[in-house]
């Protein structure tokens, strides 16, 4: 075994450096999941413990259309990723725009639901424990959707400006992980708020 030195001159990056985007996003998702977990625990713990009305059963309707929109946005973002991966920028832009549109529809739907709850049913964050936990949990999720839409819009603007190219597909797919995460959280929030703790 010769002890000769074989030095690679100026290697570009360490062998696993390529994965850091996705690993970093997974870390963020772990941290965010813990935040949501605490809010979900609080929601379940306080379910049915409100001292006054209204109760979830009286005022909540399952937001079917909203949820379908948000879940389909995960599909459109996958289509967008594939389009970018194969270099079809136009199709990418279109699918990306659809994703944003579906996200915005979800937010508008949430806004309408809240308007209805506040003005017709008189449920605010102050009303009772249900109001406090409901608006916090759903609001936290809606906040994440909003952040996601801002990020998506920035990428869309960059696409329209012509700076997003095929070689950026890895970065775009890192961002889309966040969007998928927001969708998965909605699966949990939807089941907890509208089905389990009704």
């Amino acid at each position, binding site marked *: 075994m010769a002890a000769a030195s074989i*030095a690679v001159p100026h290697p570009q990056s360490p062998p696993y*450096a390529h994965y850091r985007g996705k690993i970093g996003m997974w870390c963020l998702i772990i*941290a965010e999941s813990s935040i949501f977990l605490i809010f979900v625990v609080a929601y379940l713990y306080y379910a049915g413990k409100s001292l006054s009305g209204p109760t979830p059963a009286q005022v909540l309707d399952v937001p079917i259309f909203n949820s379908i929109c948000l879940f389909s946005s995960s599909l459109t973002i996958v289509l967008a990723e594939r389009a970018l991966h194969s270099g079809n920028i136009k199709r990418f832009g279109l699918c990306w725009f659809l994703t944003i549109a579906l996200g915005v529809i979800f937010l508008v739907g949430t806004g309408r639901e809240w308007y209805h709850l506040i003005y017709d049913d008189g449920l605010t964050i102050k009303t009772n424990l249900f109001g406090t936990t409901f608006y916090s949990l759903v609001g936290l999720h809606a906040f994440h959707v909003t952040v996601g839409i801002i990020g998506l819009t920035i990428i869309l603007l960059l696409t329209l400006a012509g700076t997003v190219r095929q070689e950026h597909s890895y970065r775009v797919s890192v961002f889309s992980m966040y969007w998928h995460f927001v969708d998965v959280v909605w699966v949990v929030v939807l089941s907890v708020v509208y089905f389990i703790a009704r």
Partner: protein
Amino acid sequence: MAEAQPIVPPLIVSPEREASRPFVQTLHGWIVTVDHKRLGVMYFSYGILFLVVGGIEAMIMRAQLAVANNHLVSPETFNQMFTMHGTTMIFFAAMPIVFGFGNYCVPIMIGARDMAFPRLNAFGFWMSALGGIILYFSFIGGFGLYGAGSAPDVGWFAYAPLTSRAFSVGHSTDYWIVGLLVSGFGSIATGLNILTTALCMRCPGMKLNRLPLMVWMNVVTSFLVLVAVSPLTAAQIMLLIDRYLGGHFFDTQAGGSAVIWMHFFWVFGHPEVYILVLPAFGILSEVIPVFSRKPIFGYNAMVGATIAIGFISLTVWAHHMFTVGMTSYANAFFVASTSAIAVPTGIKIFNWVGTMWGGKIRFKTPMLFCLAAVAQMLIAGLTGIMLSAAPFNWQLSGSYFVVAHFHYVIVGVIVFGTFAGIYYWFPKVTGRMLSDTLGKWHFWLFLIGFHLTFDFMHIPGLLGMPRRIYTYDASRGWEGWNIIVSIGAACQAIAVLILVINVIWSLYKGREAGNDPWDAWTLEWATTSPPPAYNFAELPEVRSRRPLWDLKHPEDPDWKYE
């Protein structure tokens, strides 16, 4: 051997010391930096600054408690002091120090040029810095009941309903919430960064089972930061909703629960202990082998024990809450899990002793601190097992016995480990050695002060002295013990002063360290002291856990045996 190439850490020639530049330029350079070494030093200095501030708060408390019926400070000030002391020491002294070591050591020990996300790293630091400034701004900005300027006075775990609007008038509690929230975002960012760095930025050949133990401990710590600091963030958001939007999370009048705040806080609070202690274990695991001239004993067991501690630490939080009145099943569970965590910790102690066993121990300052830390970890662990037994805990929860126990961990292990780390890596960071003579003065004085304070603090606890009391009656028989405790605290303060003098003196007059003053084995000693901004001119390639041993002993390299 499967691999044909031996490792070649690039030993580059020593660069000139940075030429002196105008102060404004230097300052600008530090403020805009994204270099992991500079951020590490900034994290560390920031932590030490707050360690001194928190220490002054502790000294005020010890002066107040030294004798019975004392009225040196007002009861209101005393409440602010213990709140600010606890909050400062955990969030703005210990966390930045831990992240300082993580920032400096993790990339350079795995042969990387920087963190995975250098700009996020700077973001994390400045968020933490902002959090500390927000907390301390409360002294002038947080008007409360007691006139102008009011620091938070709700205790570092801020139990509900004391934090509600009705009982925490003014904004002092809000400064506490927002300061911790902001620094929590910084912690999550840095935890994410360190974890990603350790997984993705490893140099060729640096497999996971060759990572230095310091890096392994930082990996587990960072994972704990992600899963444990986030619940605190969530709880702080809930508290803000309660205080500003009229929510009822912790409002017992509206059916809310004060106990759930305790759960949410301690779900963060107990893993936090391990977030802080694991990097100290990492320092011990680096220093002890180098100063015993032996490779670490039981590397795999050490890694396994670290991961086990990481997971078990997430299941023990309610041992802070035995006196709340949980079901007997919950009590039994938390007694069992808390006792269980002693097992991996014990494995670590055996491994350190096994490393020293038969070694050629060099009693330099870093090693002295490590030896003390191992012994004190044992004692802290034993009182921990005592407190994990629910019936014993019912008797002593909220007493000075508990205070003594957790200070034994935090000061006896984390601070001692930190000091060991300072003496060990100071030559690498600055290029100059710390004075060993002053170091030994620091060590012995701090050791004596530590034992005077925290050994004797157990006794008034056993005699029934509750924590957080402002003063006590002479007839309780606590006075003598408290004087000893306060004298010990003064010894520790003087010892820290010696450290500060040593650091300042050595920065200018210290002996030139050279690249590898300790004859150590990990990659940071392969580059110059201080390292250049890019760390390694060429990425090193490693074949064993002790790459520098392989380099220095080509006739008998480690990779033949691993």
